[in-house]
């Protein structure tokens, strides 16, 4: 397994190819169906308890939209509130800048290791690998992240990154890999969940007590009070946020909420959507440095890395409301069957299928362009999203952007020579030819009637349904319907709508 670098995993194939491998793994299929089914049911139960859930979703979307509509103002307010409370604020345009800032702080303190709170932003920028390249070990302290890190694996879920592993696999990883990273697992370790957790606890405790620097993300950053917030279940985050002397938080710029009061709405939405709990066990909030208590040096790295690109996308910008709850993953029928690795990013599932293209830009790679198509558009994701991201609509809009990007391709050779790049049309794909054919056929009923007449009994599905090419892909496991003797329109004309 390759380690993640940046938002994408190195050399990821397009979704259909990656999905094929996952679909062929019966253990993975079983692990995923069991785990997503369990979280899905838990979420449904606790959401049903809240009478005003739908109103709450509207409020949650409004909080984030308010922040995003005037993001610059709220970020500057956040910066000044943080600075006033003794934190140092850094701005990072991309992954490389953010990684360099964190590595610089670590080197400034002469540390060769940091403990980490589970954080999507640092996964996104490949911070662990960047620190490792500088000789600094980054220890993941969230249980599932620890499993992924020790297994030299890749995360496959936003909330439960080791969702693709069962307990027997976890036991094997602990027994084989813990010793090389610190305190070894006990010799008599079984695959009982309590024993596995106890082994992780002892292994991690030694790191919490030793580390002089911690790295976190933040679930929310409150602009008016200059407060960062981390929501977690295990208490490892609380350890990292309080024990080391230096704390660096890498925070995506879309994490800002305008006021302290806004937090109430978000903290009601997140745990029920995410872990299916009424309330999460640990909510840590911190604002600046308090002498003699907790970290004495606090840094906040505000990360863009494609977010302003996403913000400029009129339809897609709603994806920046995302609070990383992963409810959309757990209800997604595609995710349930392929798992997260097939999406090739730390952001898998329906949100990953829109967020990765929005951050990187449709047309930037075959992998990015395959993601908006990794959905049957069933709409289950939109139904559960706590901040009402209309994922199906964004998927369709991104598909149009992918197609539009291919209508015209920039002439790279001209760009290199410094001449204004000329545009030349891309070579048409079989799909685009099929769609152009369908457009012509459906432009007139006469043409459609002719097409139906000439696609007689026994001819291909593609002749009958001009928009559905790829009969071999269809017929691999599905019989083709019997073509009828006459179309509906011919029947209607011949019988005067059944009256003759």
């Amino acid at each position, binding site marked *: 397994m390759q380690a993640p670098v940046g938002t994408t995993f190195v050399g990821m194939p397009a*979704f*259909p190819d990656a*999905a*094929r491998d996952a*679909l062929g793994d019966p253990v993975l*299929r079983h692990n995923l169906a069991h785990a997503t089914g369990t979280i899905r049911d838990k979420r449904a139960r606790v959401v049903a308890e809240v009478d005003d859930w739908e109103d709450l979703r509207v409020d949650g979307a409004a909080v984030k939209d308010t922040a995003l509509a005037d993001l610059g103002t709220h970020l500057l307010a956040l910066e000044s509130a943080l600075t006033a409370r003794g934190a140092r604020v850094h701005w990072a345009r991309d992954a490389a800048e953010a990684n360099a800032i964190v590595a610089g702080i670590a080197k400034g303190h002469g540390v060769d290791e940091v403990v980490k709170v589970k954080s999507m932003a640092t996964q996104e920028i490949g911070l662990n690998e960047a620190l490792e390249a500088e000789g600094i070990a980054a220890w993941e302290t969230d249980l599932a992240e620890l499993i992924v890190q020790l297994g030299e694996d890749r995360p496959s879920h936003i909330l439960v990154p080791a969702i693709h592993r069962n307990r027997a696999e976890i036991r094997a990883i602990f027994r084989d890999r813990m010793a090389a990273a610190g305190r070894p697992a006990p010799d008599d370790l079984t695959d009982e969940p309590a024993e596995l957790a106890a082994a992780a606890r002892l292994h991690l405790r030694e790191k919490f007590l030793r580390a002089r620097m911690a790295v976190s993300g933040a679930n929310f950053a409150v602009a008016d009070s200059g407060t960062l917030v981390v929501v977690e279940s295990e208490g490892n985050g609380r350890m990292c946020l309080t024990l080391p002397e230096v704390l660096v938080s890498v925070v995506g710029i879309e994490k800002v909420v305008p006021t302290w009061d806004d937090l109430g709405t978000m903290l009601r939405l997140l745990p029920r959507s995410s872990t299916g709990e009424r309330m999460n066990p640990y909510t840590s909030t911190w604002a600046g440095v308090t002498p003699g208590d907790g970290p004495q040096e606090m840094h906040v790295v505000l990360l863009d890395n494609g977010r302003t690109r996403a913000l400029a996308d009129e339809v897609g910008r709603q994806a920046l409301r995302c609070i990383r709850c992963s409810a959309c993953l757990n209800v997604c*029928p*595609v995710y349930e*069957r392929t798992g997260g690795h097939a999406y090739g990013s730390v952001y898998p599932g329906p949100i990953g299928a829109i967020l990765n293209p929005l951050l990187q830009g449709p047309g930037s790679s075959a992998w990015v362009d395959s993601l*908006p*198509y*990794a*959905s*049957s*558009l*069933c*709409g*289950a994701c939109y*139904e559960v999203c706590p901040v009402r991201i209309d994922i199906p609509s964004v998927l*369709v809009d991104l*598909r*149009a*952007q992918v*197609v*539009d990007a291919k209508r015209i391709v920039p002439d790279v050779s001209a760009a290199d020579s410094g001449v204004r790049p000329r545009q030349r049309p891309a070579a048409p794909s079989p*799909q685009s030819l099929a*769609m*152009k054919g*369908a*457009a*012509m*056929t*459906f*432009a*007139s*009923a006469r043409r*459609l009637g002719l097409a*139906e007449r000439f*696609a007689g009994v026994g001819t291909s599905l593609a002749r009958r*349904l001009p*928009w*559905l*090419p*790829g009969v071999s*892909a*269809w017929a691999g*496991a*599905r*019989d*083709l*319907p019997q073509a*009828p003797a*006459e*179309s*509906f*329109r011919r029947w*209607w*004309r011949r019988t005067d*709508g*059944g009256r003759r």
Partner: protein
Amino acid sequence: MRVALQVTCLNDALFPHVGQAVVTLLRRLGVDVEFPEAQTCCGQPMVNTGYLDEAVPAVRSFVSAFSSYDAVVTPSGSCAGSARHQHGLVARRSGDAGLQAAVASLSPRVYELTEFLVDVLGVTDVGASYPHEVTYHPTCHSLRMLGVGDRPRRLLEEVRGLRLRELPYADQCCGFGGTFAVKNADTSIAMGADKVRHVRETGAEVLVAGDSSCLMHLGGLMERQRSGVRTMHLAEVLAAQE
């Protein structure tokens, strides 16, 4: 009230008996439904594949075929969803203000069959009789895009002799998804295979749904498996008088 049938391109070409069932059913309920021959396709296959320009001619022919009617009835949650939720998008893309206005006026008059029966005609007992073991799959676009809720179920419960078997995990997608079925064929088939397993668990003789597209996908899988379970469009069941 002038009522038009939008038969859908799929039913027109491959499942004409579904269109015929709608005609039989509506006539029995006193609706003299017409079939405007200028109709082609709602344009959804192109829109959902990202080909918005290519969907413009289909939306134009939809508007010219149906604009003069008081109600447009279609035996497809997916195509009704396309007309109500996507035609505006395509019209905006065309830059044609006339088309945008025509779409805005027409879209609210497009009904999925069960919406038309329950909301416009106000009936749930359509005089059908179909003495068989049946299970019902609520298709995603009828369920989530249109929100047809329990309308199909209320209609099925009034069918004489019909015994409705609960479908486990009924609200999970069948995996068709338009061009998804061929672009991501492996995932589509894996989703469909699970749906078929649940259908077979019910012991029903017939799988009923309101979208021929989903039934074509599931029926294809079930035939390949020689499952012995037939597929029927909801319109056919409601038209039946066995």
